């Protein structure tokens, strides 16, 4: 039943690289700026106490300097079973030198299907901190938010260490999703990548994920472990 939006979202995401062909990407001297597209993707694998963990994150955008359409997806697979997956479709508008405001829809497929309205900002904070902050409103009125930050520290011109942070916050208890009010989940990591080219980089990523507060309590009551430390290995690429 929930297959249709899933495939529609997947199709939209996969079609991004081909969009410019339709939009005739051609640089002209000072003429109306033509659309550019970028697709960034990273996928990695790890072994945790439950077995094999696969994590992905992708973001594709197409548009000009002022307006863009953005599709994002991220998720986790544990032992071949998708445990968490989401696809976002956003309209993104540049509002200042370093910031875009974004609005759109987020569709979760796992652990259970749910649709959210999304409003947020994305950009580069002072001290070169890549930042995304988005609020999510579910159909039933549940309100939650996510903050993502990362920074690139160059070891050499092609080796970079990227500390990263992701915080999920919820305004309500959502027991059916095992989410408690307050900071529900934090993910911290340090990713070390080697850029073979600017567009292709294998990496290792030491990531600590932990549920907090009510969320942790719910997971423990269910017999789960609220914390998970993994060393992931993967590749990131863009085109």
């Amino acid at each position, binding site marked *: 039943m929930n297959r249709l939006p899933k495939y529609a979202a997947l199709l939209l995401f996969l079609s991004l690289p081909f969009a410019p062909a339709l939009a005739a990407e051609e640089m*002209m*001297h000072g003429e109306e700026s033509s659309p550019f597209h970028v697709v960034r993707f990273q996928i990695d694998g790890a072994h945790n106490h439950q077995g094999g963990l696969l994590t992905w994150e992708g973001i594709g955008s197409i548009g000009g300097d002022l307006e863009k359409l953005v599709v994002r997806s991220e998720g986790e697979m544990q032992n071949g079973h998708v445990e968490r997956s989401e696809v976002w479709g956003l309209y993104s508008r540049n509002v200042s030198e370093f910031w875009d405001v974004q609005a759109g829809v987020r569709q979760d497929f796992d652990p259970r299907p749910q649709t959210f309205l999304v409003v947020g900002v994305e950009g580069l904070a002072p001290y070169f901190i890549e930042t995304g902050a988005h609020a999510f409103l579910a159909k039933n009125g549940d309100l939650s938010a996510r903050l993502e930050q990362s920074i690139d520290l160059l070891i050499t011109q092609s080796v970079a260490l990227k500390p990263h942070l992701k915080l999920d916050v919820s305004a309500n208890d959502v027991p059916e999703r095992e989410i408690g009010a307050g900071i529900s989940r934090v993910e911290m990591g340090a990713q070390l990548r080697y850029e073979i080219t600017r567009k292709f980089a294998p990496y290792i990523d030491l990531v600590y994920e932990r549920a907090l507060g009510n969320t942790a309590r719910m997971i423990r009551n269910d017999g789960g472990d609220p914390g998970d430390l993994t060393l992931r290995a993967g590749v990131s690429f863009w085109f």
Partner: protein
Amino acid sequence: MMRALFKVLVLGGFTFISLAAEAGEYSLVIDRSNVDVGGRSGDTITLNGQFPGPLLRFKEGEDVTIHVTNKMKEESSVHWHGFLIPGEMDGVPGMNGFHGIAPGETFTYRFKVRQSGTYWYHSHSGGQEQEGLAGPIVIEPAKAGGIPASRDYVVMLSDFTDERASAILRNLKADSGYYNRAKRTVGDFFRDVGKDGVAATLRDRLDWGEMRMDPTDLADVTGYTFLVNGKSANANWTGLFKPGERIRLRFINASAMTYFDLRIPDLKMIVVAADGRNVMPVPVDEIRLAIGETYDVIVTPKEDRAYTIFAQSLDRSGYARGTLAPREGMEAPVPPLRPRTQLNMADMGMGSMESMDHGSIAGMDMSHMDHSSMSAKPDASALPEKEDLHPKGWGAGFPPGEKVLSYGDLKSLTPQKDTREPSREIVVHLNGNMERYIWTLNGKKFEEAKPIELKYGERVKLTFVNDTMMAHPMHLHGMFVQLVNGQPAARLPDKHIVSVPPGQSYSVLVTADEPGEWAFHCHLLYHMASGMMNKVVVARMSAEAAR
């Protein structure tokens, strides 16, 4: 080639003077082919089967007819850089009713050559200028007895890449630091801690971080092979001479994105022309050549040996090299690349910030490098004592004791005819958003900007205020601008490119005596392509109405 002789009526002095004039007919065929350049081959644009384009030799007063045939699958155009020309012959698609040259079409340019000197031509369509559509032009003066020289060589510098221009722009839009391979690393941090202390280094990193700017951002695009007359450093373009001869070298920076620091070790260069216009001779050791500029120099090698023409890119990612030699096959040592400079707060127009007190370097910016209009002292007075291995500042990093050409040194050889005070000032802020790779004039991209309107005959002051961390070679089509460089009004040099260093401002005077729509842009190709352009309209109608 057709030749004709006719008389020109010259009103000055109410006398008839007959001048020998020629009428030349030329053809250029634009095509694409795979050209091998220094071991790299790329889909390159050729002109008459050549890369770079052939040297065009005109004579002042000549009526030229140039048939340009476009055999490519895309629209093209040829612009005559620095020419005084009717607007519809200027070759900018979308201006003066010119719509480019469609695939398979021939466009015939016809105009009278009204100047002499060293110029060049290039495409004004897409990224074709990067992809090879460029060539040199030498215009002989109408009157004989100019600058005496026994040899005369064009030395055209360019930057070659096998990447398509559209791919480069896309990479820059996705990641403006894509081509920067000299970013500051953790290692640099500790090196600076050792040199300047923890507090100063942290303060420095925090200052740059707060602005989200990168002091290593000297060149947006790297990975180029630098060429002299289409030849790589190994292929070594060579100009022959007999010891004691005076050689005129016509330097043209025909690159898309590269500033060059140019010198000929052991040879003094005497600058005799800038941007095609004769100037009072200035002996120099080095010239920082902005994109689009031309300089003519006289050198007199006395010894029976080879000399290296050495042009290192500003970001020190490589060099163009040629040789002057008494015989074919000779070589002189190629000097090492000098250390790459980093920008400092003075380049942000923040010279007084205490945390970045590089007093001596700021002093050098003003008097040694001196692209500044404020101090017009031609002689270097505050030279550093020894070579700086970690130079900071746009104007830093020249060897001690060397005389580097500064804009303040340039004096027009012939007195300026128009020395009127300007009737108004137009301020043009050079802005950019490096993070998103958007470049603008007064905050507006070309498609958003309102054209700058000048009345025919009007005299205006254009003031460029560079609010960015990069130098911008600002280029006005159709008219020379008089650079306000501290020289007397009658001696202000004519320029078609004015390179405005980071954080600085320059003024130029324009006599709007060429009616038409004139492109006005930064000559860094990808800055222009991402918006740093406007149109200057000189309205003939209003002038006629006013008469």
